């Protein structure tokens, strides 16, 4: 090859690299804009809620029952309801979801049937939440006769986030290197020993993240809870789960009527009196803060747990 043609080639190569780099540049800008649209919208919304609801930020807002007078109306029954519903959701979705995830990853034979289940589980995560509400109304309220209760709401939301927990569990388990698994089997461990002494420990961070994100989603769900008949105005608390007399535990709260934060917010928002819209905004801000806190905790925990596991 002559000197001239080498130089000409080099020029072409440089021009080509430049063209390709331009694509990098364009994509970076498009991506940044997309990110900003998402973030700024959320931020604006949040600031707007905070400004609208600002006058209600006080301790009384959390310790008062709903009231006919907007200034006195508080969230007590709603946040206690949310908390108790979340407890049921957690207790129903987590053990079942984690067990199902482990079974699918570690035990289920890989054939068309498990493929079918896999597709179904993934699709379940995309089913509109009101459909879960209808299902729960039929199953829990009418067939099982559990009433329009905390138990029903908790189980419904548990069902709703079950796919999230299953998928998170499976993904966390898949992240464990084959080499570690083989090392455990090679010293003579049984499948259950591998699962209980290795798999669960190493996937704990990922599972926990999935659980928290699922719980944060459940906290904000409105449609299914309305469908199963949550009350919108309650001025009482469910019976306390703990008592001062033996056996110290009381399960009556499970069958109690209830309301939850998003429903209380919806109720206030639908009133004509503008003063209640302030309460709604304050509630919205609270839900966002709690959700962000939960997600933040998930990220932090994940980081903390992953720090000791390098692969």
């Amino acid at each position, binding site marked *: 090859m002559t000197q001239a043609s080498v130089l000409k080639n080099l020029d072409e190569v440089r021009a080509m690299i430049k063209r390709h780099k331009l694509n990098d540049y364009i994509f970076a800008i498009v991506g940044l804009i997309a990110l900003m649209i998402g973030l700024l919208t959320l931020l604006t919304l949040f600031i707007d809620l905070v400004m609208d609801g600002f006058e209600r930020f006080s301790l009384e807002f959390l310790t008062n029952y709903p009231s006919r007078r907007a200034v006195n109306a508080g969230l007590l029954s709603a946040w206690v309801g949310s908390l108790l519903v979340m407890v049921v959701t957690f207790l129903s979705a987590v053990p079942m979801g984690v067990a199902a995830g482990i079974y699918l990853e570690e035990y289920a034979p890989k054939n068309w049937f498990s493929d079918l289940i896999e597709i179904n589980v993934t699709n379940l995560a995309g089913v509109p939440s009101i459909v879960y509400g209808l299902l729960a109304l039929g199953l829990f309220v009418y067939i099982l006769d559990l009433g329009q209760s905390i138990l029903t709401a908790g189980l419904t939301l548990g069902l709703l986030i079950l796919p999230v927990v299953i998928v998170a569990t499976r993904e966390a388990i898949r992240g464990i290197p084959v080499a*570690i698994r083989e090392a455990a089997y090679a010293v003579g461990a049984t499948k259950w020993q591998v699962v209980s002494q290795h798999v669960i420990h190493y996937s704990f961070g990922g599972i926990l993240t999935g659980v928290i994100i699922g719980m944060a989603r459940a906290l904000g769900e409105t449609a299914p809870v309305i469908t199963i008949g949550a009350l919108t105005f309650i001025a009482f608390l469910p019976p306390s789960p703990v008592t001062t007399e033996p056996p110290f535990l009381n399960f009556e709260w499970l069958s109690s009527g209830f309301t939850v934060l998003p429903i209380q917010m919806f109720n206030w928002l639908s009133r004509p009196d503008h003063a209640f819209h302030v309460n709604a905004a304050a509630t919205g801000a609270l839900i966002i803060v709690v959700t962000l806190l939960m997600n933040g905790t998930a990220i932090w925990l994940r980081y903390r747990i992953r720090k000791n596991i390098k692969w």
Partner: protein
Amino acid sequence: MVTATTPIKAESRDLNFYYSNGTRALKGISMPLYENKITALIGPSGCGKSTFLRCFNRMHDLYPGNKYDGQIVMHPDNTNVLAHGVDPIEVRMRISMVFQKPNPFPKSIYENVAYGLRVRGEKNKRNIDDKVEEALKGAALWEEAKNRLHDLAFNLSGGQQQRLCIARALATDPEIMLFDEPTSALDPIATANIEELMSELRNKLTILVVTHNMQQAARVSDYTAYMYLGELIEYGDTDMIFTRPTRKETEDYITGKFG
């Protein structure tokens, strides 16, 4: 030389192996592992060395669809470890394995070594302590590790991690130890350490080692098997294989004309 007095610890008899996709990775392999000797497996990449090694502790059972055909008989009890009635877990309790890349658990040094004992149901802390110390000494890691037994194993260097994996495999008093290219991820000094260790371990157990390193095979092993395309081309005394191989293919491979 192979003498009539050297007892055989295990032998494969006409062993064929099929992966789940139908690949026939081993073709009629018959060879012995002499007791308290080191047998090296050499051959070009993809010839089936790892496949053969992993038959001994039934690692292939972890993945569905793999099929063994033939026998691997352990002495003195004459157990065919590939037989359907023999539980792979029982086999792995007798035959331990060290992998190519160090693969410690994300647990402490102590827990890594103790794991095999825990799996076997050992609960007595004194016994476990003693065994852990013995295994770490056997793996020449005790001096470096004794003051940091409860540190995470990941904080060790690569060579130390590999010795930790040897200690883990050693703690359960296996009869046979399998090594799959145990030094390919290590520097020359760490490699020399491990080779020395293997020579010492020979007094306690029987070793089968896969290696890509001809010098290593010549240095550490008593017997050498040369495999090619799933077949055993030549097996014999290491000195003989490296000085007077009977097959042309073996000679080409060890002199570097091929592979």
